[in-house]
Structure formats: C-alpha cells, structure tokens
C-alpha cells in the first residue's frame, strides 16, 4: 500500500468493519471485529473526529456476549420491516408504506448502484440495507485508493465525487433517524447503541471529509 492510498484503504476497511458489525452476531464475526479493531488502531485513526465514538464501540465489542446479542439483533433489525424495532433499511425512513413508495426507494438505490457499476449479488442484504450501502461505499473507497496509486487525478476526482453523492443521497439522510431509533429502543445493549453512534459519527465525518478532499483537488487543479 502506498502512502497516498493509505487513508483511502483505511476508510475502505472501516466501511467493511462497520458493515460487518451490523450483520447478525456470530462468534466468528465478533472475533473478526476484534481483530480488525486491533489492526485499525494502528492506522492513525486518532487524527479523525470520529475516533472517540469508534473507541467506545471497540470497548463495547471487546466485552460483547454473543448469546445476548443474537436475540437483540433479531428484535432490533431482523424481524421484517413491520416487526423490527429499528429497520436498518433506507426505505423504512424515506418511503411511505402505501403506494409502492418503498419499492421505489429500493429501485432508486439499485439504479444508483448500476450507474456506479456496482451490483447487488443474490443472497446479499437488500439494496437499501445499511450493510449494503456501507459495502458500496467501501468499494468506492477502493476505487479511490486504486486511482491514487495509479496517480490518476481524474479517477481520484471521479471516485470522490461518487462517494460524496452517494453519502449525501443516502446514508446521511436516513442514518440519523436510524441511530436515534436505536438509542431510544427499550433495553438496547451498549453494543448496538454505541455501534450505531459510531457508524453515524463516521458517516457524518466522511461526508465532510470527502467533500473537503474533492474541493481541495478541484481547487488545486482548476
């Protein structure tokens, strides 16, 4: 990994890290989150404003009990759109259940993936699921890293533009409400409360950070 691509690769990893933490909790996955956390701890994340939220999640993850998290995960996120306390899908927060609005939101997200050259494979979470959207962002960060490694200003600019647009169109719009819903859920564990706070802090930071990088690049090459 070259120095110029290092931050993009770290951000790529963070999106996957948070996405993994929002998948159903199984012992292997929790172990991976712990290992990934230890790896990321050496990547200089203290330079970024979301560091405190991320560290709070790391602490919660280190003492998480999978036996207790599994039923909570189902109650919070995985009991269907009508049953889950906090559905982790964009359409729940932006769509009106009547008139096919939910389907339209999902279709819009899918269309955007296609425009970005991304495809949701069978067996994945729904296209508007938080994990899928985080994964999409991870891939866009990978493109940015490749562009930086190839010293391509144009490809770097395009990757940053795509990231900012996707963040502003999707994750930043509905994540605040999702986070608030989790925080207010009855008897929510520290693990999921600080996880959603950390994801929210990361995404808010990403939106500002990516916009700053894009502007910086545009101004310098104008």
């Amino acid at each position, binding site marked *: 990994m070259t120095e110029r691509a290092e931050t993009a690769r770290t951000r790529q990893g963070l999106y996957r890290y948070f996405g993994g933490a929002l998948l159903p909790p199984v012992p292997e996955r929790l172990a991976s989150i712990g290992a990934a956390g230890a790896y990321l701890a050496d990547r200089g994340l203290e330079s970024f404003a979301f560091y405190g939220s991320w560290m709070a999640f790391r602490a919660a993850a280190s003492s998480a009990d999978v036996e207790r998290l599994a039923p909570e995960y189902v109650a919070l996120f995985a009991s269907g759109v009508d049953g889950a306390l906090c559905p982790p899908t964009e359409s729940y927060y932006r769509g009106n259940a009547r008139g096919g609005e939910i389907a339209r939101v999902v279709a819009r997200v899918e269309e955007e993936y296609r425009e970005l050259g991304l495809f949701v494979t069978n067996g994945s979470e729904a296209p508007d699921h938080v994990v899928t959207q985080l994964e999409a962002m991870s891939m866009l960060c990978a493109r940015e890293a490749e562009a930086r490694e190839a010293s391509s200003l144009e490809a770097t600019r395009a990757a940053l533009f795509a990231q900012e647009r996707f963040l502003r169109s999707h994750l930043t719009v509905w994540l605040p409400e999702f986070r608030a819903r989790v925080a207010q859920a009855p008897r929510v564990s520290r693990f999921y409360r600080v996880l959603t706070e950390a994801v929210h802090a990361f995404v808010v*930071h990403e939106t500002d950070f990516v916009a700053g990088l894009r502007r910086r690049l545009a101004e310098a*090459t104008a």
Partner: protein
Amino acid sequence: MTVAVVACSEAIGTDIPQFPEGVMVVGDLCSRPARLGDVIDGADTLVLVVHPRDVELSRLQAAVRQAGFDPFGVPLVDVAGVAGTAERFDVIIAGASARGAAFRGSRPEQARPVMSEKMSRRALLTIPRPFYEAVPAIDQTLCAAADGCRACVELCPRSAYRSVGRRIEFHKDSCITCGLCVTACPTGAIETPSLSAVGLRAEIEAIVAASVTAGIVFTCASSTVPVTTAGWFGISVPCAGMVPGTWLVAAVLLGAAAATIRPCRESGCPIGHDERADAAVSFGRELAVAGGLDASVVPDVPGTLPVKRTGPPVPLTDPFGVHGAAEVAVALAASSEAVEVEAPVSPLGIIDIDRDACTLCTMCAETCPTGALEHGYADGMMTLSFDAGLCTACAQCVPMCPERERGAITLRYRTDAAAIAAGRVVAHETRTVSCESCGRPIAPAATLDRIAGLLGDEHADTARYLATRCMDCRGLTGAMSGRPVL
C-alpha cells in the same frame, strides 16, 4: 474533578520562568505532542498551556483524542496570557479547568474538518490530516421551524441556514463560526461545542472565586493577542459580536468587578461585528446603571478596575441561557426601581398589540417560538396574552401578522424588568361568535368584523353568513337553504 494541566516546555524561560507545582510539562507539546495519556492518567479534565501560533492543531487534537478527551472540551490556554504572577496563572487555570469540567461532549455534526491549504501539485494525491473547527448544529427537537421560526435564517451573515419546508438545514461549509445564531436562537436549539451557557458560567464563577477583584473580558476566539491587562481575564467566545449586553451585567452580578467585550483585531472585525460588540457594551452599561450599579463596571476597554460591588454574588440560575437576559434584568430590579433600557441590541422585547387593529387571528401566537405570545379560548372569549420574560425579541411574530401594516403588532427592543415581573398579561381579548346551527365557536368577533369590512356592502350577505355558520355547517346549511356556499 481531577484536572490535569499540561504545559509546553518551550514556554519555560521565554514566556514564563517556571510553571507552578502540579503543572505537567511536556516537551514539544505545540509542535510534536507526545502521548498525552501517559502523563495524565486518571484525570477527567484536561487543560493545555500552549503557544497558539505554534500549535500543530491536527497533531495536538489527535493526541488529545488518543488520551481519551474530546478536543473541543479541552481549553487551550495561551502561554503569553498566563505570563506574569503565579496568582494570575492560577486564576486563568481555575477558569479554564471549570470550563473544561463543564463540557458535556460534542456531536459529530459539530465538527468541521479543515485541511491544510498549503499543497504542492505533487502532494495532490496525498491525503492530509485535518484539524477540526467547532461549528454549530441544530437540535431538531428544540427547533421551532415547524411553527414558522426563521430567526437563524434571517440573522446568519453567510446564509448557512436555509429553510427547507418545515425544517431548517445548516450548511457547515458556509459557516464562519461567528456564533450569532447561538445567542439569537429563541429556543436554544442551536448549540456549539465551543461555548455553552453552563461552561461560561462555570468559568466566570471559578475566576471570581480565585481572584478577589477580577475583570472579565469576552474576547473573540480569532484574536491573536491574549488579555494581559492586570486584573482582567479573558473568556473566549466564537465572536465578540455574539455577546449580548446582559452577559456583561451577569458577570458583574456573579462577582466580577467589571466586564467588557474586546473585538478580535485592532483594525476592526473582518466581518463587521465590532459595531455589534460596541453596541452591546453600551447597552450593558446602560442596563447596569439602570440597575443601580456604577457605569464603570462596564467600561469600553479593560483598564483600571473599579471598586468591586459590595455584597455576595447574586444567585443566578442560568444567566447565559436562552432566558438569562430576563433573569439578569429581574435580579437588577431587586435593588433598583426602574430597570428599563431600550436599544436595538436589547436581547429582550416587548410586544404591543393595538386592540383596534388586531383581529385576534392568533397567527402571532402560533409562530412565537418561545411561547411569549399565547392564545386561549374560554367561556366564549378569545384571549391573546404576552409574557415579557419569555420574549427574546426574535421578531418572528411581526411579519406573520396580516394586520401589521395597520399597526396591529409592534415589537419594541426593550429590556423592562417591571414588564417581566408582571408575568403573563392579557394583550387583547374579544368575544367569540358562535355558530347559529351547532353552537360551536366560529371565530373571534374582531376577525369577523374585519372580514365584513374587507368584503364591503356589496358582499354583506356573505359576511353575515360567515358570522352565523361555522366551517362544518357552512356547506351543509348553505346548500340546503340556498345561501352562498364557500
């Protein structure tokens, strides 16, 4: 509260001969901060004494984060400002520690990354480590935009606030962190981590507790010159223009010998807010005098300190909060007969209702974000009431009034302790006309009279009809009786 005070070793010998005992001295704190966590084990509050102009903010903030602190909650004390006696150092550190201890955290939306502007073309592909500026954010649960409040939109000098439907959106890229919105928001929905009412009060109380005769100077955070006048201590605020005059009086009531505001540069504020600061100082002085204090407690500039007001600090609950100005005015009135000051910068207002022009449509009360104006209905009477203690002079009610051009509603920028003490008073009342069909109220008689006047003789039947049938009964009875259907 366990406070760790960490100072930059480079200050010793140049700015200050020796730091007092208890201060941890770290090498290269400003330029290459070490792992702070190793030296401040167990502390719950952190204060750093640095050279602001030499600080590598991105590195320092990272070190602070790594030590387990939020950088916005760690006061940076300018080493040039603490130079002098050990007593002065102690007072400044006491104030900074209290402010740090009162910090209650920041939200992700309140941080704005700033990247170095210095960049070679070769470095274009390398990502710089940012530092972060504190910016305001809206607490949507407190925001009154859904009721029509646009105070921040109207006030912001850089259009960072935009009204979108029934919400206000904040665009942090446009913000210049002047903080005008923070003190102007009538509901306290706009908060910045760089300044809180609780932190401000804690800092001032700590300073006046540590120094028998302290003067307080609210200084612009952009200022590069620390306060060094003997006996005066600086309180950093995002912009001198955001300070209401009542804050100066509040500082005096809390025990300061005097208080004033110092804008950021001798050449004037780059965004023109020095005039606001000057006006706030004049207002604060006038208010102090009206409250029986000497004019010298609010001087134009820090100078010779006046003899301190006798007596203990006045117990104030929340003098820097949303309704702090009213609390200050009422506190002054305890020792003075008439505390009344009228000026464009008054943080309080008085609403006058002209009963001949007002139709009691209640639009003003529906919009009022603080509940200063309220309407009520009881026993066939519609009432509009006003509580001067809740009015923040935000002026949101005036443009909403359909009869404003006839002078139905007027806002006076006036701080009036007697009006505040009077509590809620009836501003206007009128009987309500009831539906002849179902008996339920239709509208205030004044509203119906006004509609009749506007319709004129030509449509007198329609006016009469409106005054006899409620909304629910109009279509039905109109169709059945052949009366006009609206």
